[in-house]
């Protein structure tokens, strides 16, 4: 090699170009299909404004029902002054919180930047655009609101646990007597809460708040324990994210199908 040659790099790969021989496109494809399916279903379900309760069950998309006409509502029906051109559904008031939580979640960010934005399409695969700003400036710097959305989402999660409690008390349609019971729906709502807890309590921002923000976690015994627990859940954050996404969608579907009379809810106890 002559001593005068300047260092050069191999050219940047073109979009989709790679020397990888595995099927690297499967993972982004699965992410696109799964997220799109969820978005379409949840968007449709949120706009229905109907069939979101069945007996003591309330769909998690509609909880808390701040304004609404079902027995689960908190502050009564929507005001009469609600503009008629604006569609009303109780879900529209509350769903933005969990939606924003998932949108700004560190795991989902990485996943949808890859799958929907091809930035990169997969590791060591060429990209479509050369311009790049990442999360360094507007608009993606706004992802940093994640910690605030986390606290709002934890409040919503507490309400979902309350819904599980309500889902244990069945009213007899004839006598009006309230009795304790467990239905398949109760189990569905409870499982959803457990998986959502695994997802929310493993959040990177929570990990920071409970101990990641200091260099000596050991100083506060309680903080240290909390940090260890959050870190433990955090290791499987992706798995919790997907499982809870599935159960939250399924919980709505279950209540909806029962309410529409398509599925039969079985009482176990």
């Amino acid at each position: 090699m002559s001593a005068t040659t300047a260092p050069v790099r191999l050219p940047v790969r073109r979009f989709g170009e790679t020397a990888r021989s595995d099927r690297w496109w499967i993972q982004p494809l699965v992410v696109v299909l799964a997220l799109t399916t969820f978005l379409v279903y949840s968007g449709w379900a949120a706009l229905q404004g109907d069939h979101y309760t069945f007996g003591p069950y309330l769909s998690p998309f509609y909880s808390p029902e701040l304004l609404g006409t079902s027995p689960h509502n908190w502050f009564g029906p929507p005001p009469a002054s609600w503009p008629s051109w604006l569609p009303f559904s109780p879900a529209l008031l509350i769903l933005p919180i969990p939606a924003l939580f998932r949108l700004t979640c560190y795991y989902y960010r990485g996943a949808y930047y890859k799958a929907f934005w091809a930035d990169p399409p997969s590791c060591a695969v060429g990209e479509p655009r050369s311009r790049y700003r990442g999360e360094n400036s507007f608009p993606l710097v706004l992802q940093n609101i994640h910690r605030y959305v986390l606290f709002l989402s934890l409040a919503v999660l507490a309400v979902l646990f309350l819904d599980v409690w309500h889902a244990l008390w069945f009213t007899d349609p004839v006598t009006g007597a309230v009795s304790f019971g467990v239905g398949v729906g109760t189990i569905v709502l409870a499982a959803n809460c457990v998986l959502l807890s695994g997802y929310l309590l493993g959040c990177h921002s929570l990990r920071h708040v409970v101990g990641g923000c200091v260099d000596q976690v050991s100083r506060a015994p309680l903080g240290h324990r909390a940090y260890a627990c959050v870190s433990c859940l955090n290791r499987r954050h992706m798995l919790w994210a997907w499982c809870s996404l599935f159960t939250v969608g399924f919980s709505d579907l279950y209540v909806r199908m029962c309410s529409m009379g398509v599925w039969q809810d079985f009482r176990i106890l």
Partner: protein
Amino acid sequence: MAESATFRIWRGDTAGGGFQDYTTSVSEGMVVLDAVHQIQAQQAGDLAVRWNCKAGKCGSCSAEVNGNPRLMCMTRLNQLDLSAPVTVEPMRAFPLVRDLVTDVSWNYRAKQGIRPFRARPAGADGTWRMAQVDAERVQEFRKCIECFLCQDVCHVLRDHRMFDDFAGPRHMVYAAALEMNPLDADDRVRDLRARHGIGYCNITKCCTKVCPEGITITDNAIIPLKERVVDRLYDPVTRLLRLLRGGGDV
């Protein structure tokens, strides 16, 4: 295992080059670096390849095997499909020297830009004790062997070539090891955003996937640092709290 295999090795220098196929005998337990050495010994005496320990500890033999950034000495042939030619290329993010050898010196310059360790004053008992749990958190980052595979795969460097704006995952790991060290008194949070470009990382985790030391780069180093940057520079509540406590950088 197959008796022989074909290796499609990138040959060339700064003037240009291309792939060349070499078929060589293979046996149980061989790694890619063994095959490259065998080709060098038997067929291509002038093939340039950098290596040292052959034990995955010196970080010299980084290359791209079948398109994946890997240490050649830690990539066993039985992990690869030998029915098709195995491609072996130099790391694409760095300037080429020759054949499989790249110039990784940018990394050393980038590292110098990170504030080094500065010990805090000794405790009341005159010692610098630290608790095991606090030591463990930074211990993971010290396993780094500086193979720069994470730098190679990171799209910010590899595809966007933002070497002036982003220090790369390896140096985020380095900064995390210092910043989270309970004995360190220096502060790198503002630098992380303004000089080392942590905001350019879009947490796509390719670096974590390729790290031969299994360092959880994105989840344990980059994201916790991003959160510290948010505390300091974006979150109005934590800024207000700092102001009320009358402490530190607001």
